[in-house]
């Protein structure tokens, strides 16, 4: 890997003062999601934005997938919780096959991919015999993010693969990466539920937890694309040795990382020209934006919302370099009571109700 693939991050160079939203963002637009008694989103566990649709996965509360058009109008919702054909016991990821216009739900308990059409009707199911936290089609292949589970059928030379590219048969491993020595319990290492970013039709991007490498996945291979270089504060072998200690817990590991000022990065989203991620050092959380074109990095531990006074820049999806954040309708409803100068349009302010479905706040960056 040559130097152009390294993103140098020194927390000491982060902005020392609160950064105004208006200095990073050109604007925020809003997509209120339609609300009716049969279309109630519990929690946004994953937001998927595509050319024509918005999908929300609500794993725990309604155990449903909600599909809307790009204006937030209901297309369909789907609750197929169950043990039968076309049903999921535990929905742990959703994906969209744009070419076939199919919604794909991954059930990690049944180890199946379930396919539905754009009316929410079940089409077919396929077995995927691997433990995976995330599954995403790339071309006719399937990318898996496996976390640190005991995936013995992805074991090679005594090590376990964290990432795998599965062939069109959904069985054959064609490429694998980010090997770790031994499975680690979720009570020992925390998970940020990292996800694949769809950079384009044939390119996915992901940064696994507890590592500093960003991987790109194509229909033919997985390769390291960037290193998030924190200098002396990289999470490395020292951290993994600590996980092997007796009675290791995530709390103890956090304390260890904080003591050494190790930097953990997570919530990584990659667009065509920009990358967003969060990193944490000694308990302080920094937001970082990186321009792939100019190689510039913006990072700050604190923001000041001088635009709409209520949206939090906490992206849950990226689409064409726009960063999508979830804004609770209740928060917007409450500011109606106060004389706040907000940039949220009147047509939203006038109609919002306290328990409406969330509003998506879409942040557009100022080029840098």
């Amino acid at each position, binding site marked *: 890997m040559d130097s152009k693939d390294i993103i140098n991050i020194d927390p000491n160079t982060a902005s020392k003062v609160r950064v105004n939203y208006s200095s990073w963002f050109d604007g925020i637009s809003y997509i209120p999601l339609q609300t009716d008694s049969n279309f109630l989103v519990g929690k946004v566990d994953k937001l998927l934005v595509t050319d024509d649709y918005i999908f929300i996965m*609500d794993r*725990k*509360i309604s155990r449903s997938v909600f599909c809307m058009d790009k204006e937030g109008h209901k297309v369909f919702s789907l609750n197929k919780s169950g043990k039968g054909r076309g049903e999921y016991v535990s929905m742990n990821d959703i994906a969209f096959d744009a070419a076939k216009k199919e919604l794909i739900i991954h059930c990690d308990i049944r180890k199946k991919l379930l396919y539905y059409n754009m009316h929410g009707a079940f089409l077919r199911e396929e077995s995927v015999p691997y433990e995976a936290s995330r599954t995403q089609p790339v071309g006719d292949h399937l990318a898996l993010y496996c976390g640190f589970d005991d995936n013995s059928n992805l074991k090679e030379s005594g090590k376990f693969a964290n990432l795998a590219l599965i062939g069109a048969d959904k069985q054959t491993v064609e490429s694998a990466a980010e090997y770790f020595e031994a*499975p680690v319990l979720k*009570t020992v290492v925390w998970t940020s539920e990292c996800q694949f970013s769809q950079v384009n039709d044939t390119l996915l991007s992901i940064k696994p937890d507890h590592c500093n490498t960003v991987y790109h996945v194509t229909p033919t291979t997985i390769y390291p694309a960037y290193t998030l270089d924190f200098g002396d504060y990289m999470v490395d072998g020292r951290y993994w040795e600590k996980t*092997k200690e*007796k009675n290791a817990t995530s709390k103890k590991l956090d304390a260890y990382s904080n003591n050494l000022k190790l930097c953990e990065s997570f919530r990584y989203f990659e667009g065509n020209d920009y990358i967003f991620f969060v990193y944490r050092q000694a308990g302080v959380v920094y937001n970082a934006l990186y321009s792939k074109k100019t190689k510039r990095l913006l990072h700050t531990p604190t923001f000041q919302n001088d635009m709409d006074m209520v949206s939090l820049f906490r992206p849950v999806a990226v689409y064409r370099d726009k960063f999508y954040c979830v804004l609770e309708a209740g928060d917007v409803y409450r500011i109606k009571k106060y004389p706040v100068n907000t940039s949220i349009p009147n047509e939203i302010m006038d109609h919002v109700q306290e*328990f409406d479905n969330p509003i998506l706040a879409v942040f557009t960056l100022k080029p840098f």
Partner: protein
Amino acid sequence: MLLLVLNIVILIKHKENKEESQLLFEQYNEVSAKGIMLKQQGAFQQAAEAVVLPDMELKSPKDNSRIKLSSLLKDGHPKLFFRFRETDCDACVQHSLDLIKEAANRIPGEDIIILSGYKNVRQFYAYTKTQKLSTYNIEDQSLPLDTQEQPYFFIIADHARIQNVFVPLKGDKGYTADYLSMMKNKYWHLHQHHSH
């Protein structure tokens, strides 16, 4: 040649031993984590026994109405309660709800009550859309036992006095199934006339 074969055998043995000790280490960690959890839960269960619940207001999913806890208890039948909040361990909540659904074949459905704790009313409605069991939300108040930040079961068979408190153990469905079976035998074996 013999030396080479001997070395290979030693290497294979070493690898096997290493894998075995790694396995033993993982098992030890799992057992010891379970032990700590059981100790904590035992203390919590002891402290919670016989606590009397206040007659709190519960939000019903029907017509946005509210009811009093006492109205659920007035028929005098024992009730199995399952309490969870949105921040609780999801795996524990899900496996408990799955087992409750199975238990509903053996315990009369009207004697099983879910007490959810969603701060956001939309989330409560979204949740109840998926449920067939009686579910009520406690919005603003906490129950005296909520301090553990874990889901739990309890029985009310005598006024509003909590009995047989049980905290599910993460990843151990059998432990919860045993509890539900014992409660069924204890409180509902003489109440077959309730059964559906």
